[in-house]
């Protein structure tokens, strides 16, 4: 008999810390790529217990659950306590598409006084507090890969990226932190 396969997070054990910057992997999370026309938005918001905003770059948080606006009919829903997002959407009869991408993505938490500067080494968006305030979320790029960036605090960001890109993203953060 063999033991069941163990799931290993791609960034397990990685940590980068330097003056004014900390980069660490986020805890595993349940994630949903949610597409829905506006007619289904209210019912989905109710089922998920979180407001699916219609405002560009908006995010909503309720407990361990968050919904990030990605496009006019698209949200990334994250639950860090293993909530069954698929089951919640399954109760909604209005037309929508929900895809479980929990294991497609992984996330890094970037924090510290220099967090925005280090991010700017690879992200072309204006990350000043006026243009990208706390709560702002957006799909964008970091170096050569696509990420979803979410400002969770004045000096704290969550960076969602595809699992297979995470090693590149982590190393680019390390290099940027030494230079920025």
């Amino acid at each position, binding site marked *: 008999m063999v033991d069941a396969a163990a799931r290993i997070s791609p960034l397990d054990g990685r940590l980068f810390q330097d003056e004014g910057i900390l980069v660490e992997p986020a805890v595993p999370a349940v994630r949903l790529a949610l597409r829905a026309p506006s007619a289904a938005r209210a019912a989905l918001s109710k089922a998920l217990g979180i407001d699916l905003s219609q405002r*560009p*770059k908006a995010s909503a948080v309720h407990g361990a659950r968050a919904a990030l606006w*990605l*496009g*006019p009919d*698209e949200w990334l829903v994250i639950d860090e306590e293993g909530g069954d997002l698929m089951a919640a959407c399954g109760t909604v009869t209005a037309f929508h598409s929900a895809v479980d991408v929990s294991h497609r993505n992984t996330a890094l938490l970037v924090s510290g006084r220099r967090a925005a500067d280090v991010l700017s080494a690879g992200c*072309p*968006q204006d990350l000043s507090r006026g*243009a990208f305030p706390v709560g702002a979320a*957006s*799909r*964008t*790029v970091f170096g050569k890969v*696509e990420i979803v960036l979410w400002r969770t605090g004045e000096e704290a960001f969550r960076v969602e990226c595809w699992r297979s890109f995470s090693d590149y993203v982590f190393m680019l953060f390390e290099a940027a932190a030494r230079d920025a």
Partner: protein
Amino acid sequence: MLLIHCPYCQEDRPELEFRHAGEAHIARPADMAALSDEDFERFFFIRSNPKGVVFERWRHMHGCARFFNAARDTVSDRFLKTYKAGEPKPDLGGEGR
């Protein structure tokens, strides 16, 4: 860096997030099979490619991922106007020449 205004995100965003997607306002024939080879060639391959103002499809690939349209000057690379997919060609007034 060139900034492009996304009509869905409602703000200027860096060009790295965008991808060009060909000429805009090309109607797909309703009955493709009935087209002559010449007409199909005209629809499928022939583009206006002017020096000056072009109407193009763009996609905010690494942003909201939506397709939209833009009027751009190919000489100056200046975006004169961007607008949502499905909207008519905008009147550019003096800018369009």
